[in-house]
């Protein structure tokens, strides 16, 4: 498992709807903030890059110092963004694909309003388990 990783789901309206620090490193508040800042800035690059390829997994698209941003864009233009410091591309890809399935299950919930925050604790546990498995 990587020491630093931050996973965020950004809705098509650029609102973060799910965020999780999934790294094994000790959590520090200012580090978590920096992670979000890097991810927020990477949206600019995603916005251009997403239209240049038909693949959902855009690989590592941006970096700042040692932190790399990998992105997965769903068909509904929801973006899964992972900030990490390791280069385990295959693991990240599998992680994204499995999270995508979980996300689709959330979308199928008739009580979930697309674009609003994901508050399901079940989703949270599953995502963290996937992070432990793949990252």
């Amino acid at each position, binding site marked *: 498992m990587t020491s630093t990783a931050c996973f965020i789901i950004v809705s098509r309206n650029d609102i973060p709807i799910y965020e999780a620090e999934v790294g094994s490193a000790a959590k520090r508040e200012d580090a978590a903030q920096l992670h979000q800042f890097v991810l*927020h*800035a990477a949206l600019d690059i995603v916005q251009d890059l997403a239209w240049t390829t038909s693949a959902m997994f855009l690989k590592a698209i941006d970096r700042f110092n040692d932190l790399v941003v990998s992105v997965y864009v769903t068909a509904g233009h929801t973006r899964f963004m992972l900030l990490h410091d390791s280069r385990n591309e295959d693991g990240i890809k599998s992680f994204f694909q499995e999270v995508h399935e979980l996300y689709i299950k959330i979308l199928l919930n008739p009580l979930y309003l697309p674009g609003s925050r994901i508050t399901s604790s079940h989703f949270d546990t599953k995502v963290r388990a996937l992070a432990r498995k793949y990252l």
Partner: protein
Amino acid sequence: MEPDVSIETSCMIRIAVLPIGKVPPPLLRDYHSMLLPHHTIPLSTISSFYTEHQKSPFAHQPWDTGSLQFKFLLGGSPPSPWEDFQPYRKFLSVIGICHCPSSPDLDHVIDQFNAACKIYTSALVLRCFAFCPGNSQLDDGKKRENLVLFPPADRTMQEFHLHTMMQDIAASLLMEFEKWVLQAESSGTLLKTPLDSQATLSSEEVIKAKKRRLARAQKTIGDYCLLAGSPVDANAHYTTALELARLTADYFWYAGALEGSVCAILVDQIGQKDTGVEDEVRYRYNNVITHYRKSFIQDNVQRVSPITFELEATLKLARFLCRRKLIKEVVELLTNAADGAKSLIDANDRLILYVEIARLFGTLGYQRKAAFFSRQVAQLYLQQENRFAATSAMQVLGMTTKAYRVQSRASITKHSISNETEPGNADNGKLHHLLVVSLFESQWSTLQMVVLREILLSAVRAGDPLAAWSAAARLLRSYYPLITPAGQNGLASALKSAAERLPSGTRCADPALPFIRVYSFPLHPSQMDIVKRNPAREDWWAGSAPSGPFIYTPFSKGEPTKNGKQDLVWIVGEPVQVFVELANPCGFDLKVDNIYLSVQSGNFDAFPLSVDLPTNSSEVIMLSGIPTSVGRVEIPGCTVHCFGVITEHLFRDVDNLLLGAAQGLVLSDPFRCCGSPRLKNVSVPNISVIPPLPLLVSHVVGGDGAIVLYEGEIRDVWINLANAGTIAVEQAHISLSGKNQDSVISIGYEKLKSALPLKPGAEVTIPLTLKAWQLGLGESDTAAGKGVSGSMGRTVKDGCCPSLLVHYAGSLGDARDLEKNKTSVPPGRRLIVPLQICVLQGLSFVKARLLSMEIPAYVGESPSNPANVDGNHSNKAVGYGSKIERLVKIDPFRGSWGLRFLELEMSNPTDMVFECYMQRCSRTELC
């Protein structure tokens, strides 16, 4: 590192602009701005100042098309250690600026100028421009070297003079360059950079340096050719330099020469769009970057490193490609450049690097990236811990607020506000979900809080209380659910301490607390109803109110009102009330010093109110005011004096917030968390103000309580009507409405008519005759029951009492006005005087029965004469007295008198004494 570098920087002649003596800052800026347009001097214009002393080394100088480029630096800067490597870093000329009225002694000025020029050892041309000289200074014929007096003239004339002087400077510089190049070619100077300055220590390095000397000289000559505006010459020298540098493995100078050659190509090809050039530039610059990297020497990395040149070259290429819109490559270059920041030794260099990266991302349109690097810049500034750095940090953070969506309202332009109102206007409960979402786009609360906190911190450090107040207010208002009560208290005290340093009455565009929403706009009470007047009819009020049993009739309804908004009419000079709800969802007691309705149209006097809101509470308050002039009244929100600053709280913002909360997009609904019930969205109605109207108030003489009547009772009542308005009542008419209208037997119309016109303050008393109606079955039961229980049943039942409708109006206005504009008829009003009649049960009839009785007949006695048949009888008298014979008939068979008695049983549940009289009616004939 230097800010704002581009490939073309290599051909710019740097000129220091220094103030000499006392020059007021605005004037200095003005003189500097006069210089700025002269940044390019075409070679063709300087030929008159140019004299060829020797054969010019610039053989291919393009005298028709070429030009010299100037870069003016106000205030100059200390010399760079890399001057020898890149001559464009030298200050090749110094221009002093002197404002003569503030420094009268010209000799002193020259001394000061010369002293100031001392540090600019590389300067080849020195000039001191003295503006606005006095007569004595002009007459003083003494010739002073390098001092140029500009005779007082208008601005265009002065600019013309300045232009001439700049041409002179350009020509002098060109001649100096020629001299330098000729000298360098013949003798040769040892050119060093900080990179190899240690080389002086070892003799081996000196020998190596001598070998490299020629290549370096060629490169420098090329640089001067470029500065002299001759790219072809420059290119020739660079080619030689590249060859020689490669041979001596002098990578650093190789890269420098390559950089120069790219600039030469660009200057040569200026104005031509050639993709070949673009590829060439890209290829060569990548080469430049690799060679700068190669020149990295491990042993002097602690002291000096060529990394800054590598980064500068990267930024130059990025800027070049940015113009060509090659976004992907630029992003790649900038990301690489950002990585280089770690290896920069000087914090200042890192600052410049981040500034440049942010600027380039900004030009690409990557606002979020730009904001990210701007924030890095701000953090570097904040590390410096001084006031000026804090001010810079605050300004830089201010630029990021747009990308992070935490702008101060003051920075949002009017235009974008008007755009935002569009969805706000459409909110009649049908706002589409997507539209709501778009209102809260890009809400990264964590980032927004961090940015606002940093703005607050830097503003406090920079000593800008207003910015601090605004940041704290935004933080508190938008993110209170994410802040602990202790943090909220901290922000509240930050607000207070910022306000202490502000002058009283300061306004801030960003509202803090409380949250304010419209609770209700009360309509006119029925006593003050406004009725449209139809001047063509005698009964002018007819048709204005819906007639018939239906609330809605398709005929009376005109065109449907827009937006389904209700319309409200206010009258000049009559106080009005609006209910608003305030909420304080934070963990401290909020003291609102003043709150009043904010009216943009300016025709409304609002009355302020002071409110205390305890922790986590909401309160409905009544705000009032008086309309002062005719027109529309726009009430966008409330003005609040809280935490020492005046702010504007718009209802629309809170409506949007509540809408977002309902969709789960905003953190929390401030009203619900204060325990206030959910309200339907109340929108501000369209309010118009009309000119003053008369205002009648009524009261029943003898007390406004219910008029107690017993069934069947007839009584006179007086109603007093007073004109409380400022306009006389010209017309008045009384009519009745409601149930039991026939209980009003007469109305004193004449009394009212004779009192007209009723002047302001005058009053009239109208007599009214009332007759109590019969209680129904159910009513009588309840009344009786109440009577028994002792409460006397004085409660007046709604709806069973009649009301007096007084339609009244002021004068019709000028008849000519009337013809011009039908709508200008001032409306009338309607006063509803409910007659609070309480009918009590009086005597009630219980039962009646006929009793028969036989009396033996006294034959011979005839019944008395029947003349008195129609007399009145009381029930007590029945069966007695002299008139009894009428009721008696003789039974001829039995010989006796048959008598019939009618026994009536009445009950009196009241404590009153009734006198009863009987009357015979035709239908109830007895027997």
